[in-house]
């Protein structure tokens, strides 16, 4: 593998750790970033999702995680998925966009439903309360 020889690692990043350490945004202290208050609310909470499964890039461990991991990470990092908090309509739209514009192979109806249900459950901006 030609580029493997120079594949050291994606350096990861003091700032990530620093932000991750701010687990109590309601009680800011040194290092606090007030921009965090403005993040899309759903980006700041996990909505009671099951713990991440390291086999599947840390996706919440639930039905659909395996299918989602292998289909999505075939082309892009699974972090592209875990960053998102989208409406149900937007997930449907993105699926079609992936197929029509991004060359994702069409899946059978059952696989599509499994994966979209999973995405809409754990990476949603919908207010289901």
């Amino acid at each position, binding site marked *: 593998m030609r580029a493997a020889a120079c594949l050291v690692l994606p350096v990861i990043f003091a700032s990530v750790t620093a932000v991750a350490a701010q687990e109590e945004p309601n009680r800011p202290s*040194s290092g606090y970033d007030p921009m965090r208050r*403005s993040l899309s609310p759903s980006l700041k909470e996990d909505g009671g999702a099951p713990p991440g499964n390291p086999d599947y890039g840390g996706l919440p461990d639930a039905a659909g995680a395996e299918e989602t991991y292998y289909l999505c990470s075939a082309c892009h990092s699974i972090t592209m998925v875990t960053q998102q908090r989208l409406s149900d309509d937007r997930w449907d739209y993105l699926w079609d966009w992936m197929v029509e514009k991004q060359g994702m192979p069409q899946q059978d109806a059952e696989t599509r439903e499994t994966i979209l249900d999973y995405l809409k459950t754990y990476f949603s901006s919908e207010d289901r309360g």
Partner: protein
Amino acid sequence: MTIRANRNNGQDPAHARTDPTDPASIDRELPDRIPDPDRRSVLKGAGLAAMGAALGTAIPFHRNLPAGVIPVALAQDTGAALMKDKDGLTLLNERPLNVETPAHLLNDDITPYSRMFIRSNGLIPQSALDMDATGWTLDVDGEVDNPLSLSLDDLKNGFETVTLALVLECGGNGRAFFDPGASGNQWTVGAVGCPEWTGVRLGDVLEKAGLKSSAVYTGHYGNDVDISGDPDKVVISRGVPIDKAMEPECLIAWSMDGEELPALHGFPLRLVIPGYPGSASQKFLTRIWVRDKVHDGAKMGGHSYRLPRNPVAPGTEVPEEDMEILTIMPVKSLITEPETGAEVSAGQPVAISGHAWAGNGDVQSMHVSLDFGQTWQEAELDAPPNKYAWQRWRAEVTPPEAGYYEVWARATDRNGMMQPPVTPGWNPRGYGNNMMHRIALFAS
């Protein structure tokens, strides 16, 4: 869970090294690709054929693969290895590689390579990874009288060389603050930088080619590779109106900060179209197709780099025909010192500083507030070294007594347009968020 925490799965890779002969070691270094025997068995069980069926035929380089490590091989051209020279940046996405810079690391007037954000739509082409420009040509064709095929030497010798400090900002910078969420990389504030670029004016090259009266738009092409591995798929091809292309600050650049254009930023040649979303500034530039209509290349249509023609309520699904192209980026600013959350002394002045910029040119004024926007004071604002460079601003604020304070920063452009305190018009893909930047101060 925090959004940042799941970006690296809590790993500390600072000491990790990859053994190029051991694919499993590569797995370990890539946060999305944590290997373990179970996953391998899943892959082995599924088999290359099954994976191929699920993915269509897009498994490039499969001959090079040890069994069971398909995702590793697909990672090889992301450019992630080059991240070692980036300093303190935040990884949003490794494939394709997308990395932003925390605000306090953007304090330099000229953004150094180590702190320049990375926005990739595809994989880094092998020519860039190898830094090999042998035989590179830039073709200029379409609505021109004299189609050109220019070598790098032709460009360097045939036109006036110019060096300018120019802001590049991703159109989606600030996307993470839209609610409901907008799809794409969740940039916060740091998908922006102002390096110094050296090259020739795009307008000079178009002039030499001789624009026909039918020329209305440019269409840009590079040699980056789609993340699907499909070598025939155009990753991204955007363009700008001819009037914009003819502005003297639009460059075809071969150098950033006095060095050869780095692989991650478009080696050997790229466009720099300041004031427009960064996607107009094609990397790995091979062709400029002058069009007789608005360019219709990849990511010109649909919802990509487009805004709703009329304002919509947050979360609205907007039909594609009601979207229009995002062109001039809005006025914006950053507080780059001190770092947010600084501890300061009550009653003592605190020096605050940062940059301001606007897609339509110079910033007219800059203001800061220490009381959540109730009162404002004008900041000192330097003239830019050239149009479309960001401008240094400075202010002093004095927390009157012990407690929690926020500095809010607000730039105003030459038309009197100023940054809003909250996200401006929601749009499906989260572009153009120029809400004010804020930092915290703890006074004691």
